[in-house]
């Protein structure tokens, strides 16, 4: 909330510099968003006196002025204005000056004549008629009286005020007003606070003869006070009021509207002024809107209402959207004769709901949403009437209509002083607590260490000892809190197993030159289509965000590959030659759509690699290292993901369960990411990967007996998977197998068409004894016969 410092001084004595006051307010819980010194945007603009005016040779509207700006030499300025004469005192923006409208004035030439600045209009100085008489005149602002040339214009305009923007936290709606802030300032500075008097005289009569008020829904409107003012004398409000309103970001309109706005800013209670003469049946009914009822609001917009919305109706129709905005029809205008004035409390969540569903937000609705004090409605009415009286804006009819369903009784909180210090860990003398609470208008007495706190209705945020502790501490000072080291069990904290495993995995991946990436959890609604998935593919069943930041971020991802492809594309298109990336994140798999319960969040890893040294097998190598880390027995089978190259993809099984799918990205898919290179991706189900981790390390004695190496070179059909050959060798060698390694694969000259040559080195070893020739021959024969069974014949 923005407040003029000068205006605050009407309520509270401020005896320190503005920065110091703000610092103290910050330490009491009122963050200061900005301190704006008026005139900070008006730099190097001084009083000048026009000494001589000559016409411009090349222009019939420009004039050349010689200006005395308090220096020895006159300054030459060219102006287009016609309302000036020699001897006038005028605001003169010198070379290198700044004006409130953001303009930066520098010396230049106007139609060939040097001009070392600019003469300013009221508008250019950001002034209205309220700030300086004559400010609205078209042309240069002619200053009043005899002035000393060279005086800074800020001094002339009285721009000595500061506008302070306090950030009021949601628990302190009572401070969304001048009085609330002033009260807090008086507490932090220890100075006097004074709320304005509310004296006024009526012209007699009885308000009940003028209007009938009926509240039909006390739950949504616990209190409604109405008064009537006759014979309005509408005119502009006084300068001081206009300044206070403008400082807080509202626009002055006329005395009646300004009074309602000013009282809202001052007391926090929104007021509403109705044109009494437009109220049909001289009746006010506070009721829920009828289905389909319509209203045109002050800003000329039409709304259709629903039955959960509260309206202030006259005898026939809604005249105001309760607590949000008045109706056009009952608006106060320059010729309005009589006024019905409302001061009410509306239920905050109802206002919030209505404002949101209609998409309206006003100063009033904001205050009702955060909560106004039911006891403040009457004070605000009195304050408004006293201003009407003081400004002679109309004739006040005697009496108020006060509709309520019983007002809250005073609330007494009892807490022990000990329980307060126990929470804070700071010993605050009980007398000090009592003193602080009383200064905050939380009337407190103490007996035997028990505090009895009388909580006014305005502080409904104060509910128990924690709130009392906060109120005491923020004034006593948080610098009294002295850190104590952690107490309790001495042990190192644990991490969840998944997190430990992910850490281990990341160490491995780092070692393989892979970079961890992080991408958003949501993708565009169309992203999934880039993967060319079947229309029944479960991954198309993604959860949509109801209120996304746009389609680009609208869908919770069911896979990580599209995000990875985007990252690969970014890097490739920035001409980065190669890259190895991985991401560990979650996939969101709904149980049903639309969602009725939390979806499964599946820990998943995606991998993406590209570059001239990468191919299917380097990716397979990465997968293999990952599987080895978790010690599972793995197997590779062909897979059929539509987004991968049909002949260059595989699924990795661990204990017969699919853990990973990987391969080269289908060129059509790559193309939709502007990728022309071959790129390789994998997606790994981490919960499956972690689940297969049964690896328990037990030392195996180092071999005592020598190994025997035998090479097998064979011819087979070109289509025979090498994996089958390896299986044949492995099972043939049986227990004697130490390892079998492919060392050559060849297709070409000297090999019959449709065939390939494959060569393996096989190491045999026994842990019991040196192998005998018989054992070796038996194993070799078994291997050969196994190979023959699958159509691989030894090359002679």
């Amino acid at each position, binding site marked *: 909330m923005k407040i003029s410092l000068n205006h605050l001084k009407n309520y509270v004595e401020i005896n320190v510099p503005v920065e110091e006051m703000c610092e103290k307010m910050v330490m009491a819980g009122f963050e200061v968003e900005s301190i704006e010194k008026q005139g900070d945007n008006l730099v190097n603009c001084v009083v000048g006196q026009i000494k001589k005016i000559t016409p411009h040779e090349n222009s019939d509207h420009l004039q050349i002025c010689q200006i005395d700006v308090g220096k020895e030499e006159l300054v030459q300025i060219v102006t287009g204005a016609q309302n000036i004469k020699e001897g006038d005192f005028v605001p003169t923006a010198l070379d290198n000056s700044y004006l409130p409208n953001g303009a930066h004035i520098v010396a230049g030439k106007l139609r060939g004549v040097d001009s070392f600045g600019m003469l300013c209009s009221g508008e250019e100085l950001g002034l209205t008629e309220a700030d300086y008489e004559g400010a609205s005149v078209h042309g240069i602002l002619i200053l009043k009286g005899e002035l000393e040339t060279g005086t800074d214009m800020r001094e002339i305009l009285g721009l000595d005020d500061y506008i302070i923007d306090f950030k009021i936290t*949601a628990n302190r709606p009572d401070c969304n007003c001048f009085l609330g802030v002033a009260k807090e300032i008086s507490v932090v500075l220890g100075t006097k606070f004074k709320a304005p008097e509310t004296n006024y005289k009526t012209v007699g009569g009885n308000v009940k003869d003028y209007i009938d008020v009926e509240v039909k829904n006390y739950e949504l409107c616990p209190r409604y006070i109405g008064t009537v003012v006759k014979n309005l004398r509408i005119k502009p409000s006084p300068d001081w009021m206009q300044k206070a309103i403008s400082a807080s970001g509202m626009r002055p309109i006329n005395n009646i509207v300004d009074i309602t706005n000013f009282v809202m800013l001052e007391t926090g209670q929104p007021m509403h002024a109705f044109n009494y003469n437009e109220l049909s049946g001289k009746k006010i009914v506070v009721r829920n809107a009828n289905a389909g009822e319509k209203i045109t609001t002050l800003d000329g917009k039409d709304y259709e209402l629903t039955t959960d919305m509260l309206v202030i109706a006259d005898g026939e129709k809604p005249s105001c959207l309760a607590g949000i905005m008045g109706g056009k029809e009952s608006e106060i205008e320059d010729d309005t004769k009589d006024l019905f004035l409302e001061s009410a409390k509306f239920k905050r969540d109802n206002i919030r709901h209505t404002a949101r569903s209609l998409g309206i937000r006003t100063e009033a609705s904001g205050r009702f949403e955060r909560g106004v004090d039911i006891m403040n409605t009457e004070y605000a009415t009195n304050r408004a009437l006293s201003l009407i009286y003081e400004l002679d804006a109309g004739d006040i009819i005697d009496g108020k209509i006060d509709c309520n369903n019983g007002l809250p009784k005073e609330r007494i909180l009892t807490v022990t002083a000990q329980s307060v210090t126990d929470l804070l860990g700071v010993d605050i003398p009980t007398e000090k607590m009592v003193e602080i609470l009383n200064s905050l208008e939380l009337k407190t007495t103490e007996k035997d260490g028990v505090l009895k706190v009388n909580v006014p209705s305005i502080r409904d945020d104060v509910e128990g*000892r924690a709130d009392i502790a906060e109120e005491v501490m923020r004034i006593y000072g*948080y610098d009294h809190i002295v850190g104590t080291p952690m107490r309790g069990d001495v042990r190192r*904290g644990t991490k969840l197993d998944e997190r430990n495993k992910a850490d281990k995995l990341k160490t491995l991946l780092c070692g393989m030159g892979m970079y961890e990436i992080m991408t958003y959890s949501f993708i565009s609604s169309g992203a999934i289509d880039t993967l060319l998935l079947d229309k029944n593919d479960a991954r198309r069943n993604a959860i949509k965000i109801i209120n996304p930041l746009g389609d680009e971020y609208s869908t919770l991802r069911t896979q990580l590959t599209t995000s990875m492809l985007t990252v690969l594309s970014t*890097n490739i298109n920035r001409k980065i030659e190669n890259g190895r990336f991985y991401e560990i994140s979650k996939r969101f798999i709904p149980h049903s759509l639309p969602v009725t319960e*939390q979806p499964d969040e599946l820990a998943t890893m995606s991998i993406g690699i590209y570059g001239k040294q990468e191919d299917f097998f380097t990716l397979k190598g990465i997968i293999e290292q990952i599987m080895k880390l978790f010690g599972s027995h793995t197997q590779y089978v062909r897979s059929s993901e539509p987004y991968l190259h049909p002949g260059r993809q595989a699924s990795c099984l661990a204990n017969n369960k699919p853990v990973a799918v990987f391969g080269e990205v289908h060129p059509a898919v790559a193309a939709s990411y502007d990728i022309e290179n071959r790129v390789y991706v994998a997606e790994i189900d981490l919960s499956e990967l972690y689940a297969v981790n049964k690896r328990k390390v037990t030392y195996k004695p180092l071999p005592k007996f020598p190994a025997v190496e035998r090479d097998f070179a064979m011819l087979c059909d070109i289509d025979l998977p090498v994996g089958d050959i390896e299986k044949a060798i492995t099972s043939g060698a049986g227990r004697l197998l130490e390892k079998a390694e492919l060392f050559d694969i060849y297709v070409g000259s000297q090999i019959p068409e449709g065939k390939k040559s494959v060569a393996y080195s096989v190491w045999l070893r026994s842990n019991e004894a040196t192998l005998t020739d018989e054992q070796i021959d038996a194993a070799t024969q078994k291997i050969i016969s196994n190979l023959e069974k699958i159509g691989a014949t030894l090359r002679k």
Partner: protein
Amino acid sequence: MKEKLLSLKEAAKNAIIAAKDEHEIDELRVKYLGKKGELTALLKQMGSLSPEERPVMGQLVNEAKQHIEELITSKATEMKNKATELKLKAETLDITLPAKTQSAGKIHPLNTVLNDMLDIFQSMGFDVLDGPEVETDYYCFECLNVPADHPARDMQDTFYLSKDILLRTQTSAAQARVMQNNKPPIRIVCPGRVFRADEVDATHSPVFHQIEGLVVDKGITMCDLKGVLEQFAREIYGKDTAVKFRPSFFPFTEPSVEVDVTCSECGGKGCRVCKGTGWIEILGAGMVHPNVLRSCGIDPEVYQGFAFGIGLDRITTTRYKISDIRLLFENDKRFLEQF
């Protein structure tokens, strides 16, 4: 015979010194010491000597043999060393040529910083837990003392998936789950991803990361909160870092504070990073609100505790002076390489 021996010894010595390569040395070895060598031939003539002369002469011959042997060995070693030296010299490399390596990858900077933080909290006995990213309205708000239509909900723009299911706006959502499932003493941190409907710009991201901390036990005070945060701040920002509490408001804590630490850039003197204040706001904290304890089945008359929420992204961008938060999610390799 003695003269013969002496002249042979002299000749051998000169020949060895004059030898030019290992081959010549080998030849000299054969010539003098071989089975058919000159010394052996001399020994064979010993038979012609008188029995008195024989041992004297034998000793002389042996001495000569040993002497020649030593000369040969030392010459051979010298030559070998010289050869090695030459070979090594010829093999000299340009050590400024590029290394041959598979360079290591990197953990994402957010996780590097996160790991540092988790390590600090683990060392103080905090267990690290996780919570779901898709939460119910109940756990994200209701249970944390933020009923429907409460103005505090304006502090956060929430992404909704249905009326009651949403993307969590704060890791505090995990608090309630922990408190419902565990009895005090509780001492946990819960890092994770959170979501708010902030338009993307240099300092705002709809996806960011927090670390929630929660301690509940008998007799936990606000001073304990400060102690933990001081230790944390000192380990993250250096041992001279001070911590300052500023009163604030969060619905789920009371009292609530914003926590500032000494600006790590200027050490508190005031600079551009801290906007001249000497302090940087790093987290929000407070004593767990009695209503929150109660709604999680913990008696606020018996137990009290504190909670804090740290913004990981902000601390990361400050640490590395990353000017635009979007870089964290763009994943340009040249960016990732730097951490």
